[in-house]
């Protein structure tokens, strides 16, 4: 057990050190997070009549701005990026060097990615803490201790789900040669279906009911709404249960794709 922890701990560490080598890139990635928040805030500000207290899609103006800010931070937290490395490893045959070693490739990539992301994650969590304070003190949206704990748990679920989703998308590389376009297309569709751009209520009740059953909502909208106190207490457990089911389904899918993919990789060669 200690050996396994050491393997993945070292994978995490190498990801972290790799990320620190590129500090400027890191700084720009934080800056780039600001622009969608500004654009969406401007959009909602123009849609709401000033001072009327009206609601759009069930959100007051303050709630909508709170949703926009928190959803953006959450989407930063769960955002992947390892799928390009996965694809390169498959396409160039770089996967070989891991297959001959006594380490699981999934765990290795997961922990390297966690390490790569950890500095950005730390900073985003600080921003989230500030956002929580602003929700409470400025916008008058109370955040209870219980909600904060539920939010923290939902973030772990959200990260795992998003990782599994993009892991499955990334494994398309076993069958398709050029899939950069697929990643971008998938990212846009998934972020939209996750409520990362607008709350899912915007799409109307039928679409929202359907999207509620899919795994994507749990990657952004569910944590965001938990923090903003928009999910009735009675429904929280059921939502968590559904998200666990999706983790199970996607894990099974990822395993099946991996074993079929690796058979193909070993058969086709590189």
């Amino acid at each position: 057990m200690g050996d396994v922890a050491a393997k993945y701990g070292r994978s995490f560490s190498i990801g972290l050190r790799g990320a620190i080598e590129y500090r400027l890139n890191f700084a720009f990635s934080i800056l780039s997070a600001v622009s969608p928040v500004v654009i969406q805030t401007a959009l909602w500000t123009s849609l709401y009549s000033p001072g009327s207290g009206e609601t759009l899609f069930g959100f007051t103006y303050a709630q909508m701005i709170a949703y926009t800010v928190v959803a953006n931070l959450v989407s930063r937290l769960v955002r992947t990026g390892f799928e390009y490395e996965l694809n390169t490893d498959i396409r160039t045959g770089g996967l070989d060097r891991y297959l001959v070693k006594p380490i699981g490739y999934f765990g290795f990539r997961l922990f390297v990615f966690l390490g790569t992301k950890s500095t950005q994650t730390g900073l985003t969590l600080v921003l989230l803490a500030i956002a929580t304070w602003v929700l409470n003190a400025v916008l008058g949206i109370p955040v209870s201790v219980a909600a904060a704990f539920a939010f923290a748990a939902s973030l772990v679920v959200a990260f795992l789900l998003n990782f599994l989703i993009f892991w499955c998308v990334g494994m398309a590389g076993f069958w398709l040669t050029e899939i950069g376009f697929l990643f971008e297309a998938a990212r846009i569709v998934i972020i939209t279906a996750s409520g990362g751009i607008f709350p899912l209520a915007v799409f109307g009740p039928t679409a929202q009911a359907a999207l509620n059953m899919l795994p994507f909502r749990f990657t952004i909208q569910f944590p965001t709404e938990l923090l903003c106190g928009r999910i009735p207490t009675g429904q929280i457990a059921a939502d968590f249960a559904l998200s666990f089911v999706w983790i199970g389904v996607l894990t099974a899918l990822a395993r099946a794709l991996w074993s079929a993919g690796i058979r193909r990789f070993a058969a086709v060669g590189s």
Partner: protein
Amino acid sequence: MAIIEVDRLSRSFRYYEKQGGLGASLRNLVARRTLVREAVKGISFSIGEGEVVGFLGPNGAGKTTTLKMLAGIMHPTSGAAHVLGHVPWQRKKDLRMRIAIVMGQRSQLWPDLPAVESFELNRAIYEIERAEYSRVLGELVELFDIGGLLPVQVRRLSLGERMKLEIVAALLHKPRVLFLDEPTIGLDLLSQRTIRDLVRTLNQRYRTTVMLTSHYLSDIEDLCERVILINRGTIVYDGPLTGVNATLAERKTVRLVFSAPVAQDVLSQYTGYQSLDGLTASFEVERSEVRAFSRKVLDDLPVVDLTIEEIPLEEGIAALYRGELPRG
């Protein structure tokens, strides 16, 4: 005791025929013709502990495919193989802990980090005790003379320096079997020699079994007592390196330098005529005929220099590839 055993191992690849032109591309979208290429055709051999075996063949002969099957990266189409008693493509942990593969054209080091970070990762992956790791690394650092390279970002190193570190990374867990696929490719002569010295020392010190592919014959001549030659997926020779030229040893290369140009028509009348390059001509002559041949050309032609040489190893290998010599 056999460390590597290969029994009628075969591997074929399917691929699609693609012709040039837009029309052909569009037709390919609807119906593609599948072709099969047999990369490795039922090869068998066995390698004992501590042997350093050269695995040679022209491009596309099946060398890398065979190494990949033995390292467990690729499944065979048919046949069997055992490495350290394991079926390699089952990729059991016990086997993965005891083998290593170094591919000259593929790096296992993290380019953005100093090599020592990748070494530390390997230490964790191969579950090496800290004290043992420090001891082995210290030994390898001294042997490879790489102390100064450890803290440098890998992508800032020269190819030769990087290759030394690649090999060190592969040796930290003291593999019993080491597969080296073109470890000296692209290296200058000095670096090639360093890598060769290292492989030799390694084999002598740890009795590591080494299977080596290389296009550079000096690698093979320096390191391997035994060679396996493969061409078009079939083994054409398996035996001592000295045996490669055994049949050719009955012939010599005679090289002549002329003081004035001699027509090719004239030269081709002599038996064993091979080539003419400016004022230099070469002939392949039976050992017993060399004396008479030399006397005749000295009398007949404007010869200013005459040298008699052994036929180079390359020629012997090329002859084996062409199937001109008996197999070992």
